[in-house]
């Protein structure tokens, strides 16, 4: 079955630096990969989607890459702010819309 691994440890960075989160998967590549943000006590919120034939996608301070050869996606937050502190989830999207999530990476941005 499909397995998804994200940075297993929490990521602590200084305000203003770039945060890089990793998502690795096994088995077959999905057509789409999505990234979500989750704050404590809340449901995930959609951030970005990238297609298998796209190498890179950007939205404001966010950048996502998708390498189907390496079976890996990288998620970057540039000029990070304390308000970016949250758990970030990658999800592989399959036919029918079902999402298979990684376990999430907790990001803490210190002022």
């Amino acid at each position, binding site marked *: 079955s499909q397995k998804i691994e994200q940075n297993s440890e929490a990521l602590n960075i200084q305000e203003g630096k770039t945060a890089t989160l990793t998502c690795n998967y096994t088995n077959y590549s999905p057509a789409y990969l*999505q990234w979500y943000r989750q704050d404590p006590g809340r*449901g995930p919120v959609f951030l970005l989607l990238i297609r298998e034939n796209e190498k890179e996608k950007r939205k404001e301070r966010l950048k996502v890459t998708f390498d189907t050869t390496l079976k890996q996606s990288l998620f970057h937050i540039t000029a990070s702010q304390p308000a970016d502190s949250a758990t970030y*989830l990658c999800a592989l999207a399959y036919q*029918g*819309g079902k*999402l298979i999530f990684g376990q999430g990476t907790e990001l803490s941005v210190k002022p």
Partner: protein
Amino acid sequence: GAGVSQSPRYKVAKRGQDVALRCDPISGHVSLFWYQQALGQGPEFLTYFQNEAQLDKSGLPSDRFFAERPEGSVSTLKIQRTQQEDSAVYLCASSLEPGSSYNEQFFGPGTRLTVL
């Protein structure tokens, strides 16, 4: 016009009790998903509805779990004879179009179920 809502937000049940969790998706959204999220883990898919049709229930952990969406809007997830391992946050999500891997999903705040 608000987002996805879920009720109750918190539920404490004694082992063996039946519970019912409600989801109100965004009006007009065709697709509705249920996920289960254990502490410190990502959400795990339970089931998917397109309008009132349950098209995928492959993630339901046992026959104690049952979901319905009779009129294609509100959905209820029912858990019979709850067990301690059912303790988790149950998330509902909806999306505008029929199930497709490129649609973003809008999540509710979840129902935290604790089984004693």
